[in-house]
């Protein structure tokens, strides 16, 4: 009897029909698999980007260094920009959005899973093209390849074409992922999950996805024009024949400024979740915080001309850019105030996610304040394209994408793998990143603002008084790299060897902690009716209530004596 029952069970068993893990991953349209592919890929590219940054910093270690050739430096710079933006920061944010946001709103999948899958495939194709380009000739045109330098008249090899194809495919992938997220978060929320009860991170996913749906096509249009110019004798960015070099600047800066805002919205969403969970408090004033995140996305992107203060555009446009940049003080200030107020009155447990989130708020505040000075028009004329601008961007984006992204990684890692990342290694990693960030970029603030060291240059001259700043900055970047590496190694080791975590590793209040760790392919067997922004806390309270009541009943029913 028993012998005949067993084979039948196996024949219908779900698990045994599965193919090898890598085939499952490569063919999966599940948002959790897509999210993990993006996150793992992003961490790999973070390692590569950090190596490229170190190589550039070694070139700038001493004046008039010849470690890298001028062309080699420009190639490294172009690769670093593309890698850090398109293959680390944006996919990390979209990976966490894809992974966690559908779980948080109680969706059993995504609305357009195949679209998300195609998005990831495009992103992978973009990465392959960028680094296949590395085998012949990478782009030499810089982080944002300003036309006409990026035109074939000045850079006729295939580097810029490869750059445009790579970033274009990645951006197309992001747009498809964003469309999937927008429709999922719109259509597939659990019963009772009204917008006013949606977790902050899922709201950040909505705002960011809308933003990507708007800015992505703008950039794709610019890249298409660039490709037509380069390969089919187009004149979009050529002066004198009806085109305009400034057109590229407008279109590309709309995208890059929007992407910058997207990363900060991502970081604040993750920090909000972490602070609320670890202070065991609800998010302070959530409607205002949600509105402020949306305002950051809109107003921040409208400030794109802040990057064009030295370009021949009218002074009125510069004042408009300054107005938008300064208006950002209000939503950014309110978000940061509410995040800090979320800690206030709580009982903060200083585990790794909380530590990284605190560091992220601090670093972002420094970066944004420095950007603010850049936006005052006449001060911007002075500081534009100096290392002061480089340092401001790095403080804000390393704060957002690295410290904020790592806060998200430490926070959701138990959900993804069922294991917790090592706490001690997290602390070493955190302090190395903080020390590296300060040593690596504070000297650049000083060199840029005081001595006017220019950005993106492959050398500086002796006698310019810049050597000390650059030596410290190079040391700082190496320390920063060690910090990044520690967290990446921590994630690799903890995948198999971390302390086992239950379904609710941190005592979270949002629905992703209701699923098992890692979640089943369908996410949830059952879903609670959502009655507040903190459904899990409601469940815990109801259970506590019931057990207290039954204890009391048991006491009363016990015979005295």
């Amino acid at each position, binding site marked *: 009897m028993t012998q005949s029952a067993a084979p039948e069970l196996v024949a219908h068993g779900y698990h045994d029909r599965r193919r090898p893990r890598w085939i499952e991953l490569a063919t999966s349209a599940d948002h959790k698999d897509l999210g993990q592919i993006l996150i793992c890929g992003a961490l790999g590219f973070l390692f590569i980007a950090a190596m490229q940054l170190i190589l550039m910093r070694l070139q700038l270690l001493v004046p008039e260094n010849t470690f890298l050739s001028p062309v080699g430096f420009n190639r490294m710079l172009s690769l670093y920009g593309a890698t850090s933006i398109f293959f680390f920061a944006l996919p990390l944010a979209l990976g966490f959005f894809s992974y966690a946001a559908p779980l948080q709103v109680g969706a059993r999948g995504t609305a357009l899973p195949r679209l998300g899958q195609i998005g990831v495939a495009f992103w992978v194709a973009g990465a392959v093209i960028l680094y296949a380009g590395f085998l012949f000739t990478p782009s030499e045109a810089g982080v944002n390849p300003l036309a006409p330098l990026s035109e074939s008249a*000045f850079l006729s090899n295939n580097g810029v074409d490869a750059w445009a194809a790579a970033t274009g495919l990645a951006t197309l992938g992001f747009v498809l992922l964003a469309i999937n997220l927008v429709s999922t978060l719109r259509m597939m929320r659990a019963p009772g999950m009204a917008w006013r009860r949606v977790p902050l991170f899922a709201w950040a996913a909505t705002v960011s996805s809308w933003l990507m749906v708007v800015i992505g096509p703008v950039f794709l249009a610019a890249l298409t024009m660039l490709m037509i110019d380069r390969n089919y004798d187009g004149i979009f960015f050529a002066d004198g024949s009806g085109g305009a070099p400034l057109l590229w600047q407008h279109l590309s800066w709309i995208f890059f400024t929007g992407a910058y805002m997207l990363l900060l919205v991502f970081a604040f969403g993750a920090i909000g979740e972490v602070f609320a969970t670890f202070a065991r408090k609800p998010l302070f004033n959530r409607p205002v915080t949600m509105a402020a995140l949306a305002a950051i996305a809109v107003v921040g992107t409208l400030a794109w001309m802040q990057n064009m203060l030295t370009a021949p555009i009218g002074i009125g446009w510069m004042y408009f850019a300054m107005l938008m940049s300064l208006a950002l003080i209000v939503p950014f200030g309110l978000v940061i105030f509410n995040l*800090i107020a979320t800690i206030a009155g709580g009982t903060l447990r200083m585990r790794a996610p909380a530590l990284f989130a605190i560091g992220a708020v601090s670093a972002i505040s420094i970066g944004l304040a420095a950007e603010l000075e850049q936006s005052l028009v*006449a001060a911007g004329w002075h*500081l534009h394209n100096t290392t002061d601008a480089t340092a401001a961007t790095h403080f804000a984006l390393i704060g957002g994408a690295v410290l904020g992204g790592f806060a998200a990684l430490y926070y959701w890692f138990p959900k993804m793998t069922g294991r917790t990342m090592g706490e001690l290694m997290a602390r070493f990693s955190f302090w190395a990143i903080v020390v590296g960030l300060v040593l690596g970029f504070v000297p650049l603030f000083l060199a840029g603002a005081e001595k006017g060291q220019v950005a993106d240059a*492959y050398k500086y001259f002796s006698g310019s008084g810049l050597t000390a700043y650059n030596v410290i900055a190079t040391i700082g970047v190496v320390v920063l790299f060690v910090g990044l590496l520690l967290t990446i190694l921590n994630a690799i080791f903890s995948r198999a060897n971390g302390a086992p975590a239950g379904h609710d590793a941190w005592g979270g209040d949002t629905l992703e902690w209701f699923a098992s760790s890692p979640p089943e392919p369908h996410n949830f067997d059952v879903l609670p009716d959502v009655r507040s922004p903190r459904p899990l806390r409601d469940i815990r309270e109801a259970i506590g209530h019931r057990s207290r009541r039954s204890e009391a009943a048991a006491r009363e029913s016990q015979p005295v004596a």
Partner: protein
Amino acid sequence: MNTLLWIGFVADVILVVAVNAALFYAVRRFRSERGAAPRQLLSGRGLQFRVAAVLTIFAALLFVLGVVFTGKTRETPSTGEAGLAAAKTEPLKIKATGQQWVWRYDYPNGSFSYYKLVVPAATAIELELVSTDVVHTWNVNDLAPKADAVPGKTHTVLFSSEDEGVYEGEASTLSGQSYAAMRTAVEVVSPQEYEEFVKTEKSEIEAAQERVVGLIENGEVP
């Protein structure tokens, strides 16, 4: 220009100190203790309005200061008593052409110089920036605001300097291979020296051109 840099710096310090002081106070004060229960505080509407009002006033104040001091920077400098006589009514116009990877300066009398720009002291200078190839940023930080030379556009920069001396500058927009080597210098001299410089420059250029033309006419290779 320096005033606005200082205003921006003070605003930065205020914001950074406020955020980080509040953050670290909250973190230290509200570390978890055994038995402490968190206050389930949801919102403080009055507090939120006050914070928003303070931030709005701060931003508005910065905007006004930004417009005022940017306006001051943009004012056309006037040529002083000691300045060049020819530029008393309107600024001395000099054309600066950016090309990979050198600046060429064309003076009103038809002479030109590469790399080094010579200008008279205490005189309003109007620099017309053009580019023959890619975007270059003319950047002499101690003298004038940065400005881009974009192909197909003319971008003017106004400046004047009372102090004679040499001001160094570097390009500050990536313009290709030798971008970091694309430097320039502005030498501020007395108006008499300037007059002499452009006159010598012009005669030397003409002499050189005549010599080349003469050589070609004689059938020699220059």
